[in-house]
């Protein structure tokens, strides 16, 4: 039992505490598999840390996300598969199909631990297979198998057929549906049927590689460095989780605990009608309250691996048009995406939209963004039936929503335009529809409370993956964190005040580096500081990872590493997508159309205040406020010399931009 982190791998002796031990590089163009020791990437801990680093290092700037030159990584962390709470998360990193910057996505379920028990911490998939294939990873082996019989099947059918072929009930499957095959921008990867790695079109990247699925089965075991202390500390963490008020509401109502009128945060703002407003009429909210889903349909919880929170519900629907439906479903995002944002207060249609998005394999946020936008601009009279192929687009039309999903997944007619995502679709159609496209850096969005909660909005806009609230958007505003607690945890007394801009730049920059720790370690965000400051903080993560691996880490080391990874992602975006300060600004609706009523009536994102908040944010990261780019000093301080060289070569440092401008002027 030794740590081979610095040795070559000629003898493949790769056992390491807390880890599977191996990284598999699978080139689908020539069917070659190369195995490395995970120790080579110890510096980046695991999960998103390793994924972002590899995408930065391996993907050339000229590579299209759907070309064989792009890679897609499946990453676990050092806590994956252990008794640390909710240790079933998998990270997917790749070049983002929607933004052409970086992408990471994260899904729960039981796939990631199984992959680690099979001996692999990371998979790096390169190239493009000649014909449809799937990968079977099992006990130190990697098989490339034909998926021709699976092509055209949805994600759920694919899982069933693979389990049947491999005759093992304990296999876990990551699959794409028709949307991934047809290179739909919103295509995601479905794990264990119901768990989506949603962001960045990662399902389309798999489709572009002719990779239909990855199946895993591992009969191995993980030995942590200090089993007794690890167990005792894990017990303490579980106790803290079960005592948290926030967690208790998730346990009671499921993931929807944050959504409706009786949710964690009281009457929470929503994204309504293509994010035109954040208040949904009470009579509509009441029809789709979390308590009704619970009482009418919930038969049990289906938890993520080793998860005490159990926020995922299993429903049997025994009424209405879709009676007989059985599914694990309904995250808060899905409720918003297929309910409030489409103005559809129908339990049965929301659940069926959930199922069909899972089956086709499409991300709910970006799918909702394009569907709601289409209805919105049709209702505003900017497009007509000439564009929609004769479809009459109305709010609150459940059948229409399902029809559009199908047209998008198969890229038929009007669906072919929508399949490119809300940003591209609005650019193609024009006619003034562009300003109603709700996107961040080209990636569709569907977010709540974004006008009223300024730090939340900033974290979504600056996210390296093009929106999403899981990069740096702080949850502290929703929880009205006290000034004392805000000071203690983040040095920001306004952390709990939604309407206040001051201090939020610093707060978001802190969460951006902190959130990476959970994504590197392999735990769910719900177990962390992000959801409740009584839960797992940076020091707790350091202790857990150290006890699992034997590495000597402190919380501040992890926060510094988080800052480094965020800088690697940021540099990737500057190099590949050319993003700068202008790309960190909110779209038209959020700055010009205020919240209509309620506690946050009149709230919008004021452009002047936004710019001040952005300045604070860049300063907190040590970046240049004029361009929003990184500085040499900041990168050197983090020891990211290679990143600095790449940016230098590309002329992506602030003074270089000024020089370029001057030269241009001189000519």
């Amino acid at each position, binding site marked *: 039992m030794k740590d081979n982190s610095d040795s070559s791998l000629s003898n493949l002796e790769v056992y390491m505490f807390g880890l599977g031990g191996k990284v598999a590089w699978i080139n689908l163009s020539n069917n070659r598999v190369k195995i490395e020791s995970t120790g080579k990437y110890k510096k980046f801990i695991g999960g998103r840390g390793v994924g972002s680093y590899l995408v930065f290092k391996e993907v050339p700037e000229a590579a299209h996300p759907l070309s064989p030159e792009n890679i897609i990584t499946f990453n676990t962390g050092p806590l994956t598969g252990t008794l640390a709470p909710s240790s079933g998360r998998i990270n997917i990193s790749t070049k983002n199909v929607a933004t052409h910057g970086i992408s990471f996505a994260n899904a729960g379920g039981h796939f990631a631990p199984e992959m680690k028990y099979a001996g692999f911490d990371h998979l790096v998939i390169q190239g493009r297979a000649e014909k449809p294939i799937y990968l079977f990873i099992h006990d130190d082996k990697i098989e490339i198998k034909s998926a021709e019989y699976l092509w055209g099947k949805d994600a759920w059918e694919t899982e069933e057929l693979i389990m049947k072929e491999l005759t093992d009930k304990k296999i876990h499957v990551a699959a794409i549906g028709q949307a991934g095959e047809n290179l739909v921008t919103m295509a995601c990867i479905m794990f264990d049927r119901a768990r989506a790695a949603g962001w960045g079109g990662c399902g389309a990247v798999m489709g572009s590689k002719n990779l239909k699925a990855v199946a895993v089965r591992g*009969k191995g*075991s993980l030995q942590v460095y200090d089993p007794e202390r690890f*167990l005792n500390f894990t017990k303490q963490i579980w106790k803290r989780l079960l005592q948290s008020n926030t967690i208790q509401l998730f346990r009671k109502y499921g993931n929807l605990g944050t959504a409706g009128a009786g949710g964690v945060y009281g009457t929470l703002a929503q994204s309504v009608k293509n994010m035109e407003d954040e208040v949904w009429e009470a009579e509509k909210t009441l029809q789709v309250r979390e308590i009704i889903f619970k009482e009418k349909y919930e038969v049990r919880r289906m938890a993520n*691996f080793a998860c*005490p929170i159990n926020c995922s519900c*299993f429903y*049997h629907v025994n009424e209405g048009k879709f009676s007989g439906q059985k599914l694990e479903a309904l995250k808060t995002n899905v409720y918003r995406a297929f309910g409030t944002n489409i103005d559809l207060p129908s339990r049965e249609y929301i659940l069926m939209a959930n199922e069909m998005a899972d089956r086709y394999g499409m991300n709910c946020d970006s799918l909702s963004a394009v569907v709601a936008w289409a209805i919105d601009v049709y209702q505003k009279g900017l497009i007509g039936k000439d564009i929609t192929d004769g479809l009459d687009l109305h709010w609150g039309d459940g059948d229409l929503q399902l029809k559009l999903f199908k047209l998008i997944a198969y890229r038929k007619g009007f669906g072919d335009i929508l399949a490119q995502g809300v940003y591209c679709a609005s650019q193609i159609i024009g006619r003034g529809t562009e300003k109603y496209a709700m996107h961040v850096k080209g990636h569709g969005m569907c977010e709540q409370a974004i006008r009223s909660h300024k730090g939340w909005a900033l974290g979504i806009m600056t996210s390296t993956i093009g929106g999403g609230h899981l990069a740096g958007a702080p949850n502290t505003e929703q929880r009205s964190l006290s000034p004392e607690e805000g000071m203690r945890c983040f040095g920001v007394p306004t952390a709990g005040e939604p309407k206040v801009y001051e201090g939020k730049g610093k707060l978001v920059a802190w969460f951006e580096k902190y959130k990476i720790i959970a994504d590197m370690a392999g735990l769910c965000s719900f177990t962390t500081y992000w959801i409740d400051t009584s839960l797992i903080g940076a020091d707790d993560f350091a202790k857990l990872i150290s006890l699992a691996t034997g590495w000597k880490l402190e919380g501040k080391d992890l926060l510094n590493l988080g800052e480094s990874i965020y800088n690697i992602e940021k540099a990737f975006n500057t190099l590949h997508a050319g993003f700068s300060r202008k790309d960190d600004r909110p779209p038209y609706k959020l700055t010009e159309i205020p919240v209509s009523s309620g506690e946050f009536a009149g709230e919008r994102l004021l452009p002047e205040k936004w710019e001040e908040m952005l300045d604070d944010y860049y300063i907190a990261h040590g970046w240049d406020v004029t361009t929003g780019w990184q500085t040499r000093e900041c990168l050197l301080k983090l020891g990211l010399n290679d990143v600095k060289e790449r940016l230098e070569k590309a002329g992506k440092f602030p003074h270089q931009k000024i020089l370029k401008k001057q030269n241009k002027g001189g000519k």
Partner: protein
Amino acid sequence: MNIKLRYCLKIDEKKCTGCQACVLACSHHRSKTFSVENTSCIEVFRNNKNGDIKINLNQSCCDMCEQEEMPLCIQFCASEAIKIVRTI
């Protein structure tokens, strides 16, 4: 007194969420490793299609975690699906 003679575990499949923490806890107790295969007295089968969960509990290998104040699987079962029952 050997408590194994008088008590055993009972798992309520309806309450179970299929998270497998009990499997890991048992694996840790028996082998000081984390695994869901072979090293545990408990085996969980999840059916993602219809939401069924089936559990195999091998009572003969269970020593009720004699050194612990409570069997570890119970300590890590957040849904309180595992309980101790008396036998003759």
